[in-house]
């Protein structure tokens, strides 16, 4: 079983998003990028499968700049190979273009199972796993948990509204968008990542792709506050009175 895990880096939301309010452009170079949390879960699920049945795990990233650290971290966690798709890519590259490059790579390099985070926080033009599956005309499922390999079939779960769950099966090759791994993603120690940087390599594969249909982003902007909260100040009794008045005004209490 050969598993490919797709990973991408996204802006670290701990820091503030860098936005040029005038031009409406995101200032990608002013932001810190971290591995997408969902992709971490996809990798964990793949590594659990590897622990269980001995799959070979390859982790892939589109070279949008500094992705090496992310790939070496995946190797430190236990992935067998790391691949970087090089070409005309940067942090602003659309998911559509990334999906095209990944699909092209998958045509030349056969894998049985492709796992990816179900989404990322910057999925402006749709989710990558669905697009990859569509381009390859492979079966695909989204919001997946608990993947297992049963003979020549892949079993997995999906959860729906109303608490309904389904257990599904599919033949390989298959693309799955992982919602959450069975266990929280494992930790990669700094020393181990450093050791990987010394002892292993990231395979660079040229993935220059033809033009793809894309969305045009006209502008980014922060949500405009529609109203403000009123702070009620004063002695507790006054505050209480004021609250009662408001509740009465809005007909939220009787009497």
């Amino acid at each position, binding site marked *: 079983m050969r598993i490919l895990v797709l990973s991408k880096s996204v802006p670290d939301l*701990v*820091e503030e998003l860098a936005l040029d309010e005038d031009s409406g452009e995101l200032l990608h170079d002013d932001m*810190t990028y971290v591995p997408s949390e969902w992709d971490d879960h996809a990798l964990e699920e793949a590594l659990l499968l590897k622990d269980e049945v001995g799959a070979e795990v390859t982790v892939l990233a589109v070279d949008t700049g500094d992705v090496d650290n992310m790939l070496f971290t995946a190797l430190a966690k236990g992935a067998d190979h790391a691949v970087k798709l090089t070409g005309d890519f940067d942090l602003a590259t659309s998911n559509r273009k990334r999906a095209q490059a990944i699909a092209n790579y998958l045509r030349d390099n056969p894998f049985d199972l492709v796992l990816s985070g179900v989404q990322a926080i910057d999925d402006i033009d749709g989710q990558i796993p669905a697009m990859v599956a569509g381009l390859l005309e492979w079966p695909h499922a989204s919001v997946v948990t608990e993947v297992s390999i049963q003979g020549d079939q892949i079993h997995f779960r999906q959860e729906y509204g109303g608490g309904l769950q389904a257990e599904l099966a599919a033949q390989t090759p298959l693309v799955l968008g992982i919602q959450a791994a069975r266990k929280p993603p*494992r*930790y*990669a*120690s*700094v*020393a181990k990542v450093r050791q990987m940087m010394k002892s292993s390599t990231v395979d660079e594969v040229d993935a220059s792709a033809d033009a793809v249909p894309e969305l045009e982003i006209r502008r980014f902007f922060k949500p405009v506050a529609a109203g403000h909260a009123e702070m009620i100040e004063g002695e507790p009794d006054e505050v209480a009175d004021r609250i009662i008045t408001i509740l009465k005004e809005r007909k939220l209490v009787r009497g």
Partner: protein
Amino acid sequence: MALRYVLMAATVVLFVVAGAIFVGRFWTIYQVMKKSRSTIRTDQIGKRLISTIEQVFAHKRMLKVRYSGVLHLFIFSGFVVLLIDVVGSIGQIFSPGFSIGPILGMIVDIWVGLVLIGVAMAVYQRAVIKPERYHGSDETDGYIILSMITCIVIGIVVHESFYPYAAGPIFGIKSVALSPMEFLAYGLSRIWLSLGWTGPTAASIGYVVGYTMDILMIWVFLAYLPYSKHLHVFLAVPNIFVRKMSPHGELVVPPVPEEGIAIRSFRDLSWKDVLDLYTCTECGRCQAVCPAHAAGQPLSPKMVILELREALKKELSGEPPIPLAGGVVTQEELWACTTCGACMEACPVFIEHVPKIVGMRAALLEDGEIDKTAQKVLVGWDRQGNSFGQPLKKRPGWTKGLEVPIKDARKEPVDWLWFVGDFASYDPRIQDLTRIVARLLQRADVDFGILYEGESNSGNDALRIGEFGLFEALAQKNLEKLQEAEYNMIFTTDPHSLNALKNEYGKYGFHRPVKHYTEAFLDLIDQGKFQLKPLGIRATYHDPCYLGRWNRIFDAPRELMKRVGVDLVEMPRHGENSFCCGAGGGRIWMEEVGIKERPADQRIREALTLEGVTHFVVACPKDVAMFSAAVASTGNEGRLKVVDMAELLAEAAGLGVPDTLVVAR
């Protein structure tokens, strides 16, 4: 006469056999030590010698537990006396007429008495007092050894008491008189006389029985010891001599930096770690002081050592090795440790528990196994340099509430460089305190500055979680900034940062003066920088582990409290015996699984036993958080108030203290 040759032969044969077993055992241990990691333990010879003498002959640590210490001193000193007896008794056999003389004879008899008293006390302790610290120890082994010792010392007196009557039949010398100075043997010999057991046969039997109980039992003892926990008889002294010396607060120096500190197999232990395993006497003093154990968690420092020793024995007997981290010692045990160091402080033979535990944590961590909340903290340190998951930019956010801006030590030289730390910078409950410290410094006209966004977490706790690589990365970040800045002294309110700056950064060539704020403020008071009005409150003080135990700063906080007019009442556990708040070693971020009563809650209860104490004084930002929560969760908000040293000083100096923090007047 033939009997003498039989005794001679038995003495020699048994000695050779026992000696061979003894040497064989030590050879095995030596082989394990040889394969383990190196560590330098022969520096500071003078200090080592003095410390060894203090600990061995004056029983300094042993006497911390009075009853056990006294009984051990009796038995231990008996071993010295035993040597006199061995010379005397064997001399008697091999060279008829040989005598150690009445004075040495009397000394032997006195110590026979003392040893017997010691043994009786030990039996009473094991059978009646039953201290909890013995739980998990091999008690049978304890009784076997006590029986052997009893047998030997009784044997000493018995064969000596028959000597006057057996001298003729066995040694062919005319009757010898015992000096009444050898009072025990003399008294017994009078009894034999009255019983009429002085004939050649009776006397010979009596002598042989006594000699067998004494000398032959000593050889059996010699063969048995190396396989029992009483190996400490031989290993304690060397183990104390090769103890960890300063810098005390430095956790561990990886022998080969690239190898890291992970302990997976016995080869990853240092030779001192191996020696520790065989030196442990299972006394359980470490268990008795361990906060994790007291909280009901599955950790006992003693059991960690015993589990490792047992596993090593099995491995040496040819069984397949089991991974140490998570196998021999469970994950739950390893993550429960607060690295407070109370175990190491209590150990009479200077076993180093904490570095072993952290080393095994490092192994777990390399396999990706760690508490998930703590994992987030590690990631936060790696990405933003703080444990709060907050942007780096917000690190100096607390300075916004100040009237006078603080100098940026990255841009201009300062006299004092303030290393603020994560909690003091980010925790909203503690930021008020941080601003008080700033105002105090401003009031005292100190030329000081901070590194603003240039400061990262010191890495002290990352290292103790087992993340050596992350510690190094954080240290390098800080060192880069510290090297660029110009300053005369670093000071910090955070004992954890203090420990890293003082003891852990030394391996990267950093050796600048570092002071805790209690020390620094004491200097300022002595220079007359504050007009102080006595507070007149009765308080107790909690020694933070990384200030007290690991850095031996006990006096400055106490002196400071005296200067601001605080009537200090000590808790039973204070100074080097302080009881951890439960936050150290990364515990503050980990889930509280299996905790029956939090260490911080226990500590508050301890403080509440002190009469008239209204304030609980701390000198560590983490302690402010831990103990405020503990006072609230134990429902003692009305009775005890947690205050930081800086608040006391600010109040005494007449500085406005925010209402939320104000010391009760």
